[in-house]
């Protein structure tokens, strides 16, 4: 690389930081206004608040039932992503190892339908899963967390199978054969030998699915009607609709909504960025 002269690198540095601060500006505005009273917001949206009291936070968390929403989001995301990983890793491995017309056909079914937008299936999907109700067992796919998880798995599989399949094609078969000779059955071979080797792509699959499932609003808005089942995006939506006039309360609610994401990001940013990179290279 050519040595840049000093003024160019200072200029680049300045541009980079100005862009960075601009990126953060809305977050800053949201944060400072979550502490301000109504009058203060009316006169000054930019400055620091007169006092940092958490009264709006307490009210917002209470009104949006935050702890319940957080628990619901966590439950739904973790189980959905766990099952997406298990199912898509198993399926992709078998599809790679089978290598016949049927396995190609199944792969094509998973990957070829990636372009179907959610809007094209949502109306019949709700109608169809509604038919699965078994009132005597209190079983219903609509307005239950397991129903939502079932749908997340369905929608998450295409991309996950695609990523796993691409990765597994590059994994040598020798170790598996050795394990089989040692007396492992297929199930043991997969979990003890193959699955650990897939860790890098498992991270990617997990992160890419987390990015959309955690933030998804549309699917919960269609399937969940009970307030007690709401996930964070859904409870934020209803909360915001009710409190748009009280901006301070609304801002406190938004800050609370994104805190879990920020905390997670602080710990996992290296993996998140790696995961997105790995997902894109395919």
């Amino acid at each position, binding site marked *: *690389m*050519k040595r840049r002269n000093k003024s160019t690198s200072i200029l680049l540095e300045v541009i980079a930081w100005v862009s*960075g601060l601009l990126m953060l500006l809305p977050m800053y505005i949201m944060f400072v206004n979550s502490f301000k009273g109504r009058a203060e917001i009316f006169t000054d949206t930019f400055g620091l608040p007169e006092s940092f009291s958490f009264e709006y936070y307490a009210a917002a968390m209470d009104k949006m039932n935050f702890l319940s929403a957080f628990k619901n989001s966590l439950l739904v995301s973790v189980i959905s992503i766990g099952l997406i990983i298990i199912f*898509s890793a198993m399926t992709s491995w078998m599809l790679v190892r089978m290598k016949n017309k049927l396995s190609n056909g199944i792969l094509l079914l998973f990957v070829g339908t990636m372009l*179907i937008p959610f809007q094209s299936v949502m109306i019949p999907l709700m109608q169809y899963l509604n038919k699965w109700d078994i009132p005597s067992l209190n079983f219903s796919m609509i307005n239950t967390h397991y129903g939502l998880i079932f749908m997340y798995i369905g929608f998450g599989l*295409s991309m996950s199978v695609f990523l796993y399949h691409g990765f597994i094609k590059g994994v040598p078969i020798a170790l598996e054969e050795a394990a089989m000779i040692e007396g492992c059955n297929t199930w043991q071979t997969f979990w003890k030998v193959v699955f650990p080797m897939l860790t890098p792509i498992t991270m990617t699959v997990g992160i890419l699915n987390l990015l959309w499932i955690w*933030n998804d609003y549309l699917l919960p808005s269609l399937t969940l009607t009970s307030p007690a089942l709401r996930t964070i995006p859904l409870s934020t939506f209803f909360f915001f609709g009710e409190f748009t006039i009280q901006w301070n309360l609304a801002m406190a609610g938004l800050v609370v909504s994104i805190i879990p994401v920020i905390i997670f990001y602080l710990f996992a940013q290296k993996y998140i960025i790696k995961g997105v990179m790995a997902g894109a290279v395919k």
Partner: protein
Amino acid sequence: MKKSVKRNLIAAAFIVPSLFIFINVVIIPFVMGIVYSFTDWDGFKFAGSNFVGFDNYVRVFQDSDFLTSFGLTFKYAVCMIILVNVIGLSLAMLVTSKIKSRNLLRSIYFLPNLIGGLILGFIWKFVFTKFFVQVGEVMGNSSIFFNWLDDPTASFWALVFVGTWQMAGYVMIIYIAAIQGVSDEVLEAADMDGAGGWMRFRKIMFPLIMPAFTISLFLTLSNAFKQYDTNISLTNGGPYGTTELVAMNIFKTAFSMNQYALAQSKAIIFFLVILVVTVTQVVISKKREVEQ
């Protein structure tokens, strides 16, 4: 048990669970959707609905709101493609240059992606309606700082702005991966041959990171077409339905106006358009890729 039967059973155990869920969540509803779009289904009992041929499709093309939404979505997609990729690539160039704290900046640029479209839209709603208005007052009738969400044209740009703000960091990551894949030797060779900064970018870097363009354009395009969350939280279609993107139009046709069969026909057309546009885009960009 015969060996081959056993092998098939084992294979099925690995594949059937995924396949079962996938078929029930995606394939069956998709096929049902195609069937519904040719009937006068009212959203409740399908039995008793009549086959109406292409009637719904004819109605879709007479629905001026839908056509407006589609036009708006195209415009939105084009603006997003240009802005997201220009800004994403620029940010990628910045954080792969030798500036300090490039890792921290990378994390900051990517941050909006984690927050999600719905919540981002709400945050920006406050910024536009309160912060922008106050800055405008301080600056005295500014042409930039006013409540964008009150004005149909500015509202559209608000959607583009927030969408870009969210997605630029994502495609930046993709471009970083591509830029890091370009070997230093090639760039040094270009230097030796006397290529300047711009020349080096255009003739060496640009062709070599073409695969990243294919992916980034594809992602931006399909995301822009499917945009719903930010549309709901930022403008909710307003003012006066002037910023209703196509995903929102389909949703409203079904769940607010209860015209399920019509909405389903719109959804099928929506799918076909996404299919044609994205496949065309990928084919065109693939042709321009070169081997390193």
